[in-house]
Structure formats: C-alpha cells, structure tokens
C-alpha cells in the first residue's frame, strides 16, 4: 500500500478522534462549516468556537515544519475560480447545514439519512464539476 494512503488513514483517525472528543466532551457535532458559520451568524458559544478554530489553524502551523515534504495546498492561481469556489462552498454548506466533517464524518457514523444523502450529493456534484471542467471543456 502506498505511504500516502497510510498517512490519509492516520490523519483520518485523528480527525475522527477530534470529532469524538468534541462530541463526548462538549456534546456538540464537530462540523467545520457549522462552527465557523455560527460565528458569522453571531450565534452562541463564541469563545468555544474561536478556541476550536485556534486549534485547527495553530496545530498545522506548529506541525508542518516537522513534516517532509511539507504539505502544500497547490490551490489554483486563477483568482476568479477561487472566489467562485469559496462563495459556492460558503453558501452551500450553510444552506445544507453541513460539510465534509459534519455531514460526512459525524453524520455517516451515526447512520443519519440526511448525512448520507448530503455526502452522496456533494461528492457527485464535485465529480460532475471536475468531469465537465477538466475532461469536457479542458478548463482546469
């Protein structure tokens, strides 16, 4: 098996462990879009949300120099694409009330029909988007 898959699995276990700590400790669903979106909506638990985000941003900052090769995002330099994608992700995750972590990780693991359906739909939509833009129109 390729090392990348093992790193993926190890990283996944840490993500799930974080979600388990958040659920069993605070009784909350660990969803990235929900935690950030709650700040945008000026919802409750502001300090909890901010300290969660401090961990999400701070830990990669501290750990990344220890890794070889250092992970890069390889994000497209086409700024119009970046803005369009960001807007779609922001609107979509809030309208659907969840993203990969909330619907995907926390929803599927409790066999939530909404989580399973959302995950199938966003993976399918992403797959169609890539297929059209890369293989049909040759844009990305």
């Amino acid at each position, binding site marked *: 098996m390729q090392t*990348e898959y093992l790193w*993926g699995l190890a*990283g*996944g*276990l*840490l*993500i799930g*462990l974080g*979600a*388990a*700590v*958040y*659920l069993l*400790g*605070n009784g909350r669903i660990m969803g*990235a*879009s929900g935690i950030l979106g709650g700040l945008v909506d000026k919802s409750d638990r502001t*300090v*909890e949300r901010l*300290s*969660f*985000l*401090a*961990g999400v*941003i*701070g*830990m*990669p900052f501290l750990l*990344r120099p220890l890794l070889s090769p250092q*992970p890069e*995002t390889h*994000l*497209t330099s086409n700024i119009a694409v970046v*803005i*369009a*994608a*960001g*807007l*779609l992700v922001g609107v*979509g995750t*809030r*309208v*659907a*009330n969840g993203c*990969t*972590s909330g*619907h995907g*990780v926390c929803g*599927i*693991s409790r066999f939530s*029909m909404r989580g399973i*359906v*959302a995950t199938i*739909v*966003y993976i399918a*939509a*992403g797959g169609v988007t*890539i*297929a059209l833009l890369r293989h049909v129109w040759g844009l*990305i």
Partner: protein
Amino acid sequence: MRIFISLFAGSLFGAGLLISGITDTTKVQGWLDVFGNWDPTLAFVMGGAILPMLIAWRLTGNRQPLTGGQFPTMSQSDPDRRLILGSVMFGMGWGLAGLCPGPAIASLTYGGYGGVVFLIAMIAGMYAAPTLGAKLDRTANAA
C-alpha cells in the same frame, strides 16, 4: 473546561487534516476525478475519521456529555430541498478549487494569498446563505 475541550478537539482536527494530505487540493480533485488519474486517498481519510466516531456514538446512549447538557438528537426530517441544493452548490465549489471548509481553515498559515481569498469568499457566502436559503423556501412554496 468546554473551551479547553474545544481547543483540544480543534488541534486533533487540524493535525489530522494536515497529515492526511487533504489540504492538498490536487488530492481532493484527484479523488473527484473518476475519469482521470483517480486518487483514492480521500476514502482512507473518510474511513479513518468515521471509525472513532462509530465508537463515540455508541458511547452516547443513556449518558451525558462530560461537561453536562445533552447529546445532539438526530434530525428526524427527511432530506429536503435545502439539503440537496446546498450540497450541490457545496460540491461544485469543492470540485472547482479542491477545498472544503475544514482544510480551508487549517491551511490558513501556508495556503498563501489564494487561500486567504478563498476563506474570505467562503465567509461572505456564509453571510449570504440565510437570505438565499429563505429565497429557496419561497420558490419552493410558490411552485
């Protein structure tokens, strides 16, 4: 205590996102690219993340969270218009750039200028979402 737990959970999440490799947009787009050079890494990440949560959900029965209160109840409503249309929009954006909210936040310190622009656009989208969601409901009722 709740604040410490949040920081700890966020740190685990951030570490996992970093080492799993999924803050790399080429890996995410590779996973979605079934007609190209398909990259299955994301399946390992998702599978790995679901395992601890399968156990965690089993531990919630008849208990309370460590800091009190109640565990979140499962939504009893069926998948609706909002869930489907929202997920379609999210999936399109995810495919376009290869970033979802978690990795977009986690890569803030190494994603460069483009990463910051993505995050600002995503937050702007989150601001607009309640209004757009309400519009969606009105068109649903009119139909």
